[in-house]
C-alpha cells in the first residue's frame, strides 16, 4: 500500500504534542513516522533513556496508546511478556483478538550494550514484536557518554578527545548484522531523512510473523554538536556518504534500499558536527582516513550481500 503523506497527516497522533524532547531531536520524528505507518492498534514499551524521560513525567504522559517503561536493559523482555499475555488471554477467550502490535523502543545504549542479552533472548524465543533502536550513537540521556554504537573518533564525555587521544578509539559494533544472525523474519536499517523508506519498513516489521528489528539513525543535536534545525540534513548526509546505509533483510534476503548517485566523502558528514571537530587538527587527520576506509569496506561488503 502506497504511503500518502496527506492521509498520514490526517491520522490521530499516537505520540501527542507536549512531550519534552529537546528542540530539533530526531526521536519524536521517528516515533511518529513509525506509529503513523502502522495501522493496527499498538502497545509500546520504552527502555530508560531520552524517549522515556521526555514522554512520561508523572502526572503527564505523551502517549495516546498503552505504554510501559520497566528498566534500562529489558524493554524487549517486558514487551515479550505483554505479548505472551496477549496470546494466552486470546487463546483462553478472556479478551477478544484485536490484532495488536507490540513495539519495544530502546536507545543505542539500551540496545547495543546493556540490553543486548535480553534482546537476543527475546528474538531467539520468537515473540512477535517490533524492536526499534533509536540510535543516536551515545548515551544521550545521561549526558553524552560513549556506547558501543559511538563511531570511532567521536568525542563523548567518556571517550573525550584530548591532546593525545582523538575521541573514541573503537569502531562501532555491527549490531544490525548481529541481529540478522538471529534469522528473524525482518531486519532493517533506516533513517528519518528517508521517511517513506522508514515508514514502509515499519509496515513490513508490523506484518512480520515473528520478531522484527529496525535500527534507526537518530540525530541528537545536543550530543553531536550542531544546530537545532539541521537534524534531517545531517542524517541525509550520513546516508549519502554511505556512513549509514539503508538496507533490509527480509527472511534472509538482503536488499539495499538506497544507493546514492554519487558517494560523498565521509568528511562532509563529519564536518557538520562538533563531536568530530578535533579530527580536523593536523595530528588527528589520519583518523578521518581510517573512518573513510572502514566505511568503504563496509559499503562494499554490503553491496556484495545485497547482490547475491
Amino acid at each position, binding site marked *: 500500500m502506497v504511503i500518502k503523506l496527506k492521509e498520514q497527516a490526517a491520522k490521530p497522533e499516537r505520540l501527542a504534542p507536549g512531550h519534552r524532547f529537546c528542540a530539533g531531536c530526531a526521536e519524536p520524528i521517528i516515533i511518529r513516522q513509525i506509529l503513523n505507518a502502522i495501522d493496527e492498534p499498538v502497545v509500546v514499551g520504552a527502555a530508560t533513556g531520552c524517549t522515556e524521560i521526555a514522554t512520561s513525567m508523572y502526572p503527564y504522559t505523551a502517549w495516546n496508546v498503552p505504554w510501559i517503561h520497566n528498566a534500562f536493559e529489558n524493554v524487549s*523482555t517486558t514487551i515479550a511478556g505483554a505479548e505472551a499475555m496477549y496470546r*494466552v488471554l486470546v487463546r483462553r477467550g478472556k479478551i477478544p483478538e484485536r490484532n495488536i502490535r507490540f513495539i519495544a523502543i530502546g536507545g543505542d545504549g539500551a540496545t547495543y550494550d546493556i540490553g543486548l542479552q535480553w534482546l537476543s533472548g527475546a528474538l531467539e524465543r520468537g515473540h512477535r514484536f517490533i524492536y526499534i533502536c533509536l540510535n543516536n550513537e551515545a548515551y544521550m540521556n545521561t549526558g553524552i557518554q560513549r556506547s558501543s554504537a559511538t563511531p570511532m573518533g567521536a568525542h563523548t564525555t567518556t571517550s573525550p578527545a584530548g591532546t593525545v587521544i582523538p575521541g573514541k578509539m573503537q569502531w562501532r559494533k555491527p549490531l544490525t548484522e548481529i541481529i540478522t544472525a538471529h534469522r528473524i523474519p525482518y531486519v532493517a536499517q533506516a533513517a528519518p531523512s528517508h521517511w517513506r523508506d522508514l515508514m514502509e519498513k515499519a509496515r513490513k516489521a508490523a506484518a512480520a510473523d515473528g520478531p522484527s528489528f529496525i535500527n534507526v539513525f537518530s540525530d541528537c543535536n545536543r550530543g553531536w554538536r550542531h544546530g537545532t534545525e539541521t537534524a534531517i540534513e545531517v542524517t541525509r548526509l550520513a546516508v549519502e556518504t554511505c556512513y549509514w546505509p539503508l538496507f533490509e533483510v527480509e527472511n534472509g534476503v538482503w536488499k539495499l534500499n538506497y544507493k546514492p548517485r554519487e558517494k560523498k566523502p565521509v568528511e562532509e558528514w563529519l564536518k557538520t558536527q562538533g563531536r568530530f571537530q578535533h579530527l580536523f587538527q593536523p595530528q588527528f587527520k589520519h583518523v578521518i582516513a581510517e573512518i573513510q576506509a572502514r566505511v568503504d569496506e563496509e559499503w562494499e561488503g554490503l553491496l556484495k550481500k545485497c547482490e547475491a
Partner: protein
Amino acid sequence: MALEGAHASAQAMRQINPDVVAAYPITPQTAVVQTFSQYVADGEVDTEFIAVESEHAAMSACIGAAAAGGRVMTATSANGLALMWEELYIAASLRLPIVMTVVNRALSAPLNIHCDHSDSMGARDAGWIQLYSETGQEAYDNTIQAMRIAEHPDLLLPVMVMQDGFITGHAVELVEVADDTAVREFIGTYTPKYSLLDIDHPITFGAWDLWDYYFEHKRQQTDALSKAMKVIVDVGQEFGKTFGRTYGIFDPYAMDDAELAIIVLSSTAGTARTVVRELRKKGLKIGLLKLRVFRPFPAQELVAALKDVKAVAVLDRSISFGAMEGAGPVFLEVCAALFAAGAAQKVVNYIYGLGGRDVLPEYIERVASDLREIAETGKVKTLVNYLGLRE
C-alpha cells in the same frame, strides 16, 4: 500424595494454571521449573510458559505480562533472586500481583547451593510480601493463598513464598493436594484494574517522578503493605474453612504459659518444636513462635504474643552484614519491635545453618538452657551466638 517440596509448589502452580510463567533454572528451584514445563508439555496446564535466558529476564517478562493484566508466576533461588533485584523493586512499585516461589539457598561467595535465608532476606526491602513455609504442605498451601493475597484489591502486591532448599525442597513427604476445582474456586478469577491490553483506554505504566511525586508514591506503597496483614489473616482463615488448615501470621506452640520463647522460620521450626515438646515434659516453660509472615513484619502482633515471656531467642539463618554485632535480620526486627513497644524482655540471637549446615536438636537445647540462664540472671552474656559453628 508423597511429594518433594519443590513438586508441592509445582502442583499448586498447576492447579492455579496461571496465564504466564517465565522462569530460569537454578538449584534447588530447578525441580519447580522442570516440573512445571512438563505440565505444559503434557497439556495439564495451558499457561504461556516462557523459558527465558536469565532470572532478570524472568522477572522482566513477568512484569510485562502482569501489566498486561493476567495471572503471573515464577520461581527462583539465591543468585537468581539476587540477579532480579532491580526488577523486584519495580514489580512491587508498579503494584503487580506476581507470585514467586523461592526455594531458599545461600548467596555466593563461596558458591554454595544449600539452604540458608540470605537470598530472601536480601530481598526483604523490595516491597514484596514474604511468606515462609515449614513443610512441603505449607509451601503448597502458601502458594495458593499467595495468589489471593497478591490480587486483593487493597494490595495488588507481589508475594514470595519461601521453603528451605533441599531440606523441604527435595525431601519427600506426604502432601495433601486439594481437588483442582476446589483450588480454582478458592482463587477465583482475576480482573485487573488496569491493563496494557486495554487499547481503548490507554494507560501509561512506569512513568517517572521528580521530588514532587516520588515521595507520595512511596508512601502509598508502604500504606498498601500495611494493609496486607489483615488480608493475609483473612485469606488464612478462609483457607482453613475450605481446606481444613488455617494459617495466621505466626504459629505459636506451647506459648500459653511460656516464660521462654524461641522464634524461628521455615523447616527449623520442626526440629525446634520437637525439642520444645521434650523440654516441656521436663517442666521447662518454653514455647515456640514459628514466623510465617516476615514482610510486612508483624511487630505489634509479636509484641502481644511475647508479652508474658521473660527471655526470647531469635534464630536467624542469615547474617545482616555490618548490622549490630553482625546479627541476623529477624533478630533486628524483633529487637526493634520490642524496644518501640517499651517491652522489657531480654533478647538473644543465634545464627545457624548457613550454607546448609545441619541443625541438630542439641543446638536448640543449648538455646533453651541459655534462655533459662538469661531469665534467671536478667543478663545476656553474648548478644549474637552461633550454632554448630567450628571455632
